[in-house]
């Protein structure tokens, strides 16, 4: 994928103070032709806001975003169509709690992509096996561990055969062991050629999986580089961020 962002602005009205908060401030970012882009940076710097725009969930106040030269739609109808071609996984609460893991996987296939139920079951059978979730398919989210929930959520995004995935801190609500099982799954996606944009605080994993790392801070993107360059760069904000993260 080739991501090109120019002059991206996102402002939100703060209902309490009545003022406008500028979360993204004329952000520019142009990647090479890559498979995996990882967004890192301090909390509140605009990573998640950017990812929501990329995933077609929010419309930016100004600016343009294009994947492979194709600009994102700005109208709700166009955005629904766009969201159907990509997959998005949030930090938590992805799954619908009134449905079993299997029903969660089937819902988009049947109601969004028009598959017959039998066809949809056939489609999810092999991936459930591959990611070790087949024996949990009948359970509701409340009966799954945090790691299992996130893996089912990733699978749900994956089985509709999206052009790319957007992952917003998929492990930050998990303990270290479960973080490992989810990162392993994302690592496997990388190995099998799935394109994705990932927001994460796991610097070691970012270094391993990213083709390019974008540093998002103060509503802009002061650094975009390959992992090797990024983790040895001298941009002051990046240096202080990495020092802070490594101390934790």
């Amino acid at each position: 994928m080739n991501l090109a962002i120019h002059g991206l602005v996102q402002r939100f009205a703060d209902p309490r103070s009545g003022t406008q908060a500028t979360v993204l401030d004329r952000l520019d970012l142009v990647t090479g032709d890559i498979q995996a882009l990882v967004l890192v940076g301090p909390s509140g710097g605009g990573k998640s806001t950017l990812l929501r725009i990329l995933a077609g969930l929010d419309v930016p106040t100004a600016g343009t975003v294009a994947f492979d030269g194709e600009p994102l739609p700005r109208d709700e109808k166009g955005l629904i169509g766009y969201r159907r071609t990509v997959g998005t996984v949030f930090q938590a609460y992805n799954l619908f709690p009134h449905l079993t893991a299997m029903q969660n996987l089937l819902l988009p296939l049947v109601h969004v992509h028009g598959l017959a139920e039998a066809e949809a079951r056939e489609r999810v059978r092999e991936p459930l096996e591959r990611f070790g979730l087949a024996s949990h398919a009948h359970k509701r989210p409340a009966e799954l561990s945090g790691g299992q929930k996130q893996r089912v959520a990733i699978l749900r995004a994956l089985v509709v055969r999206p052009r790319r995935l957007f992952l917003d801190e998929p492990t930050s609500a998990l303990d270290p062991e479960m973080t490992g099982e989810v990162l392993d799954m994302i690592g496997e996606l990388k190995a099998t050629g799935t394109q994705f944009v990932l927001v994460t605080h796991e610097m070691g994993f970012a270094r391993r999986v990213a083709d390019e790392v974008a540093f998002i801070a103060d509503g802009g993107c002061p650094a975009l580089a390959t992992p090797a360059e990024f983790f040895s760069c001298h941009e002051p904000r990046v240096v202080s961020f990495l020092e802070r993260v490594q101390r934790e």
Partner: protein
Amino acid sequence: MPRWLAHLIVIALLAAACGWAFASLDMTWNWGVVWEYRQAFWKGWWMTLGLALAALLASSLIGLAAAVMLRSRFAIVEAFARVYVELIRGTPLLVQLLVGWYVVAAALHVGTEYRAAVGVLVLALFSGAYMAEIFRGGLDAIPKAQIDSARAVGLTRWQAFRLVVLPQAVRIVLPAVAGQLVSLIKDSSLLSVLSIGEFTFAARNVNSATYSTLESYLPLAAGYLALTLPLSALSRWLERRFRYEAA
């Protein structure tokens, strides 16, 4: 102490107290005369059940629609629902029934054969105002993350409401709705003021024919309890049944 035993003890104490109260009154019971009218009670009891079920169905639809309107982005839509809910909840059902029948239905030239239908409609509007607040609470309880997830998998707004929000909200509100049905059944006794032949109307008629007041009204209490106690039990069971899903 097991729960059932505790319940049994309380019921026994209550029965003893009632027995003592009635014994000290030195009443002459006249159950024989009232027994003659058992068919009237029976018919009235079924009528009450039917009226309450019809009103429940209608009030659920009214309540859901009003709840959605209460959450509307459009101020005028929200205002309609808010005025309806506050007006209905702030006035006695008795007044609503009298106005509904003697003013609104009369103005629309509704025939007396539609008495029961008008009664059910007013009862449904009354109960619907309470249902609206119950449903609004249920809809508000669905986290925004669920709507994000629904949009992210490509559902339309309507699909997200129908497939994700509504099924979860219904599970949350079911115990409260069952509780509301208990109130609805008792409130339906006021339909007797419109001479609708339900359970309370039957008891009133028996009383005026036999002058045996307690013998007419005690079976009434028993008949209502026979409807409301199972509902209360159902409400508690539903509450336990759906608790696990809050994850």
